[in-house]
């Protein structure tokens, strides 16, 4: 019987080649899109699941809620948290801290700056990733041991075995040691939040000069991972943490007041597998997952599949009259309705299987480009045993059933008596109305996607190209090391840079726009002690920074060399004793209780000096200038209220303003100068334009992906409409004939058919617009700097959809209208 079904099915498919091609191609493109999106979603949701005992591993995250400022959260915990928790929570089996250091590594005459994770020797007891060579038990036992990834082994030692080789490292803060390679690990897969290439053991005495890393409760510099004992409940720990924090975390004093840190900090646990999508940032991780993007793409995948299934349903019911006789006959021969339903469902399953095979071809063809855009390593590995095969099987069956169920029920419901007697078409009007409804759905989805794509793309382009508050063109950044010993190097570098041809300005600064870090400081208004501390972001710039960056001055003046108080460099004692001058940005005005830029000039504030846990003191600072806001972070983030000061200690980045054409030449010249001045250090430079573009890389990738899949959705929808229009034109041959006999012209007939197909598109617009408006307003609210929702985008998308419909239908309509009516009338 199945064989008979398949015979009929195959011969039907071959007989109606165009219809079959539209259906299979549409379904295949839909399935391929769906598979690609599923691979991405599956990858994004599978992070860190591969770690042995991942269910028992937790990341400790912290949140500082200091009144009057944005809460600050990170996937990190203060350094002392580990030992304190190990002491008090018996549920913890093992714990490890990771902190990132960027030492200079020398290899022969080459110098590199490398991210090295320093980890407690207990690393493998918690995060147990495989070593290719070396012994986990002893790999981190010695303070001078280092384990490196295969990629790093290849980079430093090539074909020579890395084990036992030496890597001399030097940090900017004076740690110098020859590390010996004691292990090589497999490059971590892309589905882990950890971005680790080299691991050295934490040796507490190495960090004596930087007590905040391991010892202070007020600083977040280490990521902490806990492995619980089997059967232990993480919730028990979470519940006990608030009490525990109050008991364990010591207080500090600020400005003579005792402040309890425990009041401001909240510590929590998050399972390892949730970190990628739900976790806070830390310093050893990869860019976080975008839950909204995953949700959006899942919806898009479902929509594309829906459009493809609607095509199938529509074309199958439209062609129902062609199958009516067979249905009737089978019924006459004693087929039960269930048998017919089964027959038609197996037919649509067959189509689904064929489409799936074609989809796999598409997927394989698209994967290289797809991976490049998304910067992932996605692949179809059917042997991996990771649910791929069952997922695909479910997909095939689902598509087969979803697409075929209605046609199967519809076709199997035909009453044989009428059909067989008259040999006439039995297509009822009911299915025509359903088809119109489904076409509306298809177009509503297409228009919605079109609007969303346009908005997302416009916003991404806007964010990337928006004016960040300074002139970004031709800015070359050269990074010099921190520390007193390099003071001379930095000054010489700046002086030499100024001499180069094509350089119009050179300046030094601490953080740069696009650097993610923020350094907050507490300010106080004299005579108005605030119950909650006022926090401003503190940034260091050289005298001519605003000039070189072309940041508009709103009131007062820029810093000037030789003016008393403008140079804030000095020890904490110096700062407390003499105070200094600051320039604030526009956003800081309201936080400091100031109405206008002019009002700010000459105002004095108390600023925190030194580290909070040392018992912070205050210095008196005077506002000498107010500058316009500039963006240090991406368009998603708010502009931070900022106080700028000039502290020579912190000026380690050299910015060169070049005229655009000479940028690369200046960069090469700088490298040459660097090699002469500091051959022991790697030269690091980049252009501001590239740095800004990199901030939006992920968003751009997502926008590209969204645009591509939206385009596919629209193409599949148009294909379906094409098929439907073809059948409609055929079905109405007689009507068209009669109209022509009665005097209708070709253009009248074309107009009739085109208008007929325009109605669903117009209705679809009415559905799509509010939904897209709502979704996009929500999405745009995620950006501090955003475009407005332009009604033109909606109108254009709607018109575009209409145009697609007209073009698709128009050709058929024209052909049908040109037929000689005599032929058409004799035909029925």
């Amino acid at each position, binding site marked *: *019987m199945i064989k*008979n079904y398949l*015979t*009929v099915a195959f*011969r*039907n498919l071959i*007989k109606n080649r165009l219809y079959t091609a539209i259906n299979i191609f549409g379904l295949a493109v839909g399935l391929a899109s769906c598979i690609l999106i599923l691979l991405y979603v599956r990858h994004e949701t599978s992070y860190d699941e591969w770690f042995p005992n991942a269910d028992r591993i937790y990341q400790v995250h912290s949140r500082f809620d200091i009144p009057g400022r944005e809460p600050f959260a990170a996937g990190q915990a203060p350094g002392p948290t580990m030992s304190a928790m190990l002491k008090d929570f018996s549920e913890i089996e093992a714990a490890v801290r990771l902190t990132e250091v960027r030492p200079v590594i020398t290899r022969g005459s080459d110098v590199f700056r490398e991210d090295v994770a320093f980890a407690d020797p207990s690393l493998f007891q918690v995060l147990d990733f495989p070593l290719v060579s070396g012994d986990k038990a002893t790999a981190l036992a010695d303070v001078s041991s280092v384990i490196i990834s295969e990629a790093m082994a290849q980079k430093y030692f090539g074909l020579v075995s890395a084990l036992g080789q030496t890597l001399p490292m030097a940090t900017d803060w004076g740690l110098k040691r020859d590390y010996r390679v004691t292990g090589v690990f497999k490059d971590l897969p892309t589905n882990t939040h950890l971005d680790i290439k080299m691991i050295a053991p934490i040796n507490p005495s190495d960090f004596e000069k930087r007590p905040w890393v391991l010892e202070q409760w007020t600083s977040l510099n280490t990521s902490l991972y806990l492995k619980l004992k089997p059967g232990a409940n993480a919730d028990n720990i979470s519940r006990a943490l608030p009490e525990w924090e109050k008991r364990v975390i010591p207080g500090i004093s600020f400005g003579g007041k005792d402040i309890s840190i425990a009041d401001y900090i909240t510590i929590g646990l998050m399972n390892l597998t949730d970190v990628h999508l739900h976790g806070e940032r830390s310093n050893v991780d990869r860019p976080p997952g975008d839950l909204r993007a995953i949700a959006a793409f899942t919806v898009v995948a479902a929509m594309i599949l829906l459009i493809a299934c609607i095509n199938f349903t529509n074309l199958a019911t439209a062609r129902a009259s062609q199958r009516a*006789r*067979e249905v*009737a*006959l*089978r*019924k*006459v*021969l*004693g*087929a*039960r*309705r*269930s*048998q017919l339903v089964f027959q038609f469902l197996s037919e649509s399953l067959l189509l689904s299987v064929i489409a799936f095979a074609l989809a796999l071809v598409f997927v394989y063809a698209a994967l290289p480009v797809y991976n490049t855009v998304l910067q992932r390593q996605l692949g179809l590995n059917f042997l991996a045993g990771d649910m791929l095969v069952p997922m695909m099987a479910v997909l095939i069956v689902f598509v087969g059933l979803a697409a075929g169920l209605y046609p199967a029920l519809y076709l199997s419901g035909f*009453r*044989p*008596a009428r059909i*067989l*007697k008259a*040999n006439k078409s039995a297509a009822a009007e009911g299915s025509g109305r359903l088809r119109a409804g489904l076409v509306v759905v298809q177009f509503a989805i297409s228009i919605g996607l079109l609007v969303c794509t346009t908005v997302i793309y416009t916003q991404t382009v806007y964010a990337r190209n928006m004016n960040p508050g300074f002139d970004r063109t031709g800015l070359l950044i050269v990074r010099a090391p921190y520390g007193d010993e390099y003071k001379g190097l930095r000054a010489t570098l700046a002086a030499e840079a100024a001499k180069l041809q094509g350089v119009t300005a050179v300046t030094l600064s601490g953080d740069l726009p696009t650097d993610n870090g923020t350094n907050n400081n507490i300010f106080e208004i004299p005579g108005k002690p605030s119950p909650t501390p006022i926090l401003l972001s503190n940034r260091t710039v050289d005298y001519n920074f605003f000039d070189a960056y072309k940041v508009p001055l709103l009131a007062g003046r820029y810093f000037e060399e030789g003016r008393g108080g403008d140079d804030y460099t000095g020890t904490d004692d110096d700062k407390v004793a003499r105070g200094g001058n600051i320039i604030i940005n526009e956003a800081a005005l309201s936080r400091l209780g100031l109405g206008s830029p002019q009002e700010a000039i000459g105002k004095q504030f108390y600023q925190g000096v030194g580290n909070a846990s040392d018992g912070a003191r205050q210095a008196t600072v005077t506002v000498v200038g107010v500058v316009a806001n500039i963006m240090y972070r991406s368009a998603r983030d708010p502009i931070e209220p900022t106080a700028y000061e000039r502290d020579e200690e912190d000026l380690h980045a050299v910015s060169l303003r070049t005229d655009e054409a000479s940028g690369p030449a200046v960069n090469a010249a700088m490298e040459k100068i660097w090699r002469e001045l500091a051959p022991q250090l790697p030269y690091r430079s980049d252009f501001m334009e590239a740095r800004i573009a990199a901030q939006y890389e992920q968003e751009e990738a997502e926008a590209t992906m969204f645009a591509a899949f939206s385009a596919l959705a629209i193409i599949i929808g148009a294909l379906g409409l094409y098929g439907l229009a073809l059948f409609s034109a055929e079905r109405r041959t007689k009507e068209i004939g009669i109209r022509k006999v009665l005097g209708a012209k070709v253009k009248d007939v074309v107009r009739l058919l085109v208008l007929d197909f325009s109605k669903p598109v117009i209705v679809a617009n009415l559905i799509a617009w509010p939904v897209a408006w709502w979704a996009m307003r929500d999405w745009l609210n995620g950006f501090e700097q955003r475009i407005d929702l332009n009604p033109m985008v909606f109108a254009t998308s709607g018109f575009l959809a209409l145009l697609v419909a007209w073009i698709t239908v128009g050709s058929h309509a024209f052909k049908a209208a040109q037929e000689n009516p005599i032929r058409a009338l004799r035909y029925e």
Partner: protein
Amino acid sequence: MLKLQNLTKTFRTDEVETTALDAVNIDIKEGEFVAIMGPSGCGKSTLLNIIGMLDTPSGGSYQFKGEEISGYSEGALADLRKKNLGFIFQSFNLIDELTVFENIELALLYHDVPAKERRERVTAVMEKVGISHRAGHKPSQLSGGQQQRVAVARAVVSSPSLILADEPTGNLDSQHGAEVMALLKQLNKEGTTVVMVTHSRTDAGHARRVINVLDGHVVAEGLRPEGELVTGSFRSVAA
């Protein structure tokens, strides 16, 4: 074999109710060859559809082999139809995508007949209707008469006890029509009950009994002796 009592069939649209059959009483015995005659729109096709269980009556009783089936579900009717009935249509109604062999075989597929037996039975019946040499052809490659012979073969291959033929010669020229009628007569001789709707007096002449229908009523029934050629009117019975 079957007995219709006070059978009515009404069709309803939104406003109009049309009575297609009105209080029809018919009794057909096993082994009979019955022709139903009447002008277009008289209700004879409706009658045949109800007898063939392709349609259900609005009122009255339909007993098939002693069983009252007027209230049966669609599924139960499909089973009964499968077991007992064979159909032949004016427009042949062969499936274009299937070959002659496959078209005939189709009737057996719904009977769960094993493949080997299917082949034997189809081969035998093709032999019987004289279409063996066309087994691998598609319907579109056959003449009308050949197509109708395939349809007859399909109707009888499952050995039904009742064959319903709706204008079996309506689309055929007289020579091919005669061939098909001869086949039906042959089947009837072998014991199969045949009920045929026809316009053609010649065709009706092959039947042992003729039922005349007009405006939903049975207006006349006539019997004729075996072998006698009928040309004129029939003996009236009380309508």
